[in-house]
């Protein structure tokens, strides 16, 4: 794995574009990049032929959680197949592994102890020790991977938060020691909850280690939108400029913009999964710097970024999800058809929505990169947030609380 920062945005903040070379592809992953969230290596509804048809040249970085593989196949079977790339027949994709995936593998700090981290999985709660974790990692052979972290929510005690930092730093040493390549593709995990001091302590410690990049954990776990920038900046200020930074738990458009502003390079796409399950399609404008504006006429209870295809207003709507969108779904199907598929509970609805939403969100990331390259990222953020806010103030405040990044998100 090789990473280079190509441009830092002028103005405030640490937004940057970079190129990440990994795996078999001679073409780099351009950052800030969206890692496509998967379940056992495939996006929830996209088989490999559909992944291959996603837009934009270059390797598609996919995120996997080693925790997903606790329920099989076993590490020895994965090894005999030849690792993740072979098992999924996605030899040219870049696989990135970290334990938390915000879909099926959620940190459960209550049950973690000094021996290992704990995760809530569909198969029940699992305690994962560094040795378990590394056994799976060494069979999967992802292109790069994060060390095991003890991620805690913002409301834990100071003592518990300190313990999570101590453990996470110790487990990083364990992971490097257990890795056959000596940690040549490891991203050091950084935690510290909602404490600026602990964030700084953890980042400083991890930055001293021989790691290829950084995984920033413990976000999206109850900290407020307002306190997040100072926490992010504290972490990033303690990290060397030349190494890539991955984050987990910042997924909504505004959260991504916050992360990019702080200098984060890699994000997860759990947002797309949740939208798709909800029957929602992203429709916000991607060329806001060129004057494209938010459509405030959407019949969607005060949200101008997405539409709910279950709504009866789309029954006879023969337009595509987004005019001029080049994705398979928009090129071939109408809102009316997707509305119908949702009504009769056909899985094709989720497949078509996931194709469009993935396409659209990849487009959002491309717009972000363009804005940084032309030193207009501040303006991009301002226009995006104003586009939404202008609408929020002009309509009934009945938008979905769980979808609003302006409120703190409680994950119980």
């Amino acid at each position, binding site marked *: 794995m090789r990473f280079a920062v190509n441009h830092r945005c002028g103005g405030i903040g640490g937004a940057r574009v970079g190129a990440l070379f990994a795996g078999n592809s001679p073409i780099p992953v351009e950052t800030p990049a969206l890692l496509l969230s998967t*379940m*056992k290596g*495939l996006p*929830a*509804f996209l*088989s*490999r*032929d*559909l992944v291959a048809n996603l837009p934009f040249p270059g390797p598609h970085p996919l995120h996997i959680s080693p925790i997903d*593989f606790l*329920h*099989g*196949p*076993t590490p020895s*079977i994965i090894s*005999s*197949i030849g690792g993740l790339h072979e*098992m*999924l*027949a996605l030899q040219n994709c870049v696989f990135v592994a970290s334990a938390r995936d915000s879909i099926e593998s959620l940190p459960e700090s209550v049950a973690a102890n000094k021996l290992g981290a704990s995760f809530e999985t*569909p198969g029940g709660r699992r305690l994962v020790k560094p040795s378990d974790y590394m056994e799976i990692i060494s069979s999967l052979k992802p292109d790069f991977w994060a060390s095991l972290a003890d991620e805690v929510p913002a409301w834990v005690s100071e003592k518990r938060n300190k313990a999570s930092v101590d453990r996470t730093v110790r487990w990083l040493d364990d992971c490097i020691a257990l890795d056959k390549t000596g940690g040549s593709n490891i991203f050091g995990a950084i935690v510290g909850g909602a404490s600026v001091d602990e964030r700084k302590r953890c980042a400083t410690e991890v930055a001293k280690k021989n790691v290829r990049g950084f995984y920033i954990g413990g976000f999206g776990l109850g900290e407020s939108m307002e306190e997040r920038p100072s926490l992010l900046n504290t972490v990033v200020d303690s990290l060397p400029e030349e190494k890539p930074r991955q984050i987990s738990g910042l997924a909504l458009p505004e959260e991504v913009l916050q992360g990019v502003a702080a200098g984060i390079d890699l994000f997860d796409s759990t947002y797309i999964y949740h939208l798709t399950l909800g029957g929602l399609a992203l429709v916000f404008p991607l060329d806001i710097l060129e004057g494209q504006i938010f459509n405030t006429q959407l019949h969607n209870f005060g949200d101008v970024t997405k539409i709910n295809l279950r709504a009866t207003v789309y*029954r*006879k709507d*023969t337009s595509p999800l987004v005019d001029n969108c080049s994705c*398979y779904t928009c090129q*071939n*199907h*109408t809102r*009316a*058809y997707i*509305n*119908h*598929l949702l*009504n*009769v509970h*056909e*899985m*094709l609805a*989720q*497949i*078509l929505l996931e194709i469009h939403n993935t396409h659209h969100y990849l487009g959002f990331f491309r717009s972000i990169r363009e804005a940084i390259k032309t030193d207009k990222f501040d303006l991009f953020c301002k226009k995006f947030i104003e586009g939404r806010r202008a609408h929020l103030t002009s309509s009934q405040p009945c938008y979905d609380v769980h979808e609003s990044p302006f409120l703190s998100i409680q994950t119980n």
Partner: protein
Amino acid sequence: MSVVSLVCLSHMGRLLRFAWGMQIYLGMPRSGSIKGLTNNQLEEIGCQIILGNTYHLALHPGAELIDDIGGLHKFMNWKRALLTDSGGFQMVSLLQLADITEEGVTFQSPADGKPMLLTPEESIRIQNKIGADIIMALDDVVKTTITGPRIEEAMYRTLRWIDRCIAAHKRPEVQNLFGIVQGGLDPTLSYAIGGLAGGEDKDSFWRVVAQCTAALPEDKPRYVMGVGYPLDIVVCSALGADMYDSVYPTRTARFGTALVPEGVLKLTHMAMASDVRPIDSTCICMVCKNYTRAYIHCLVTKNAMGSQLLSYHNLSYMMRLSQDLHTSIIVGRFPEFVQGFLRAQFPKGDVPAWVCNAMEVAGIDISSCCAPFQSPLA
């Protein structure tokens, strides 16, 4: 045998372009899509024609809406052929309180419980609005377990209804009407053999098909409705049927079962967890080219992707079976095909008696496949 389909399908509008006389296997959407496959994927695996259920489509999204949008082809953006059934079968099988009179089928509306009447004219009116390439006449369905005068009544009523359907059909130049055979025959139509999906025993099943195909004209396609087990398709083809449909390949995929030349492969089985072979090493589908049984084992029953991949393989298998059947007929090697198929499915020679009986009537010698198992002499 079914070389006949090669000739007759060329008379049929849209089918001319796409189906060019293959043994047609209809995919089975519940109401306008196949479980978990995109149109591109369906074309990729060779699907020529798919079936929409009139009853379900009339409920969601409604025939008027489909008509407003420009027909089912346009609504689901499917460029190949489409077929709709009459809607009658679902009413009788899904709704307990259906009552059949000379006028039509009376049933309780699932929307508000009020009595509704489906007449032959209404069935055709709805199917004209949906706009499939092939439409079905409404038939008087009787349970196959019923015997006596009711059977005869159904036969004559179905014939009278076919006349009403023909009279009501507004778009004969673009939509082909299939008559349904319920014991009776009419020389003017293509045919669908109905009433066979209801759990009758296999021996009476093949005899009905044999009777119908023997009496039907050679130059019209014969569609055996709701039949979709691979073995049934091979037997019916030997007896002269041309078209089939079934939910079996996608339904069984949802329970983790793959169709293979040897029969079925249960991917949920623990032995699959460490099996690094493809589902079927002779299959060239996207799934078999790329994934191991071990990987699919960990997806099935847990992730949507499991049934998505298995549906893809199972439909590919059915398409390949129907293509192989067709090719073997064209090149004059159909008996060899049947023998090979049966040997793979019944390696011990335990071919069911009903298959042996049917093949005898079809004039195909399968003695080499169903000879009693020879135990090696000590």
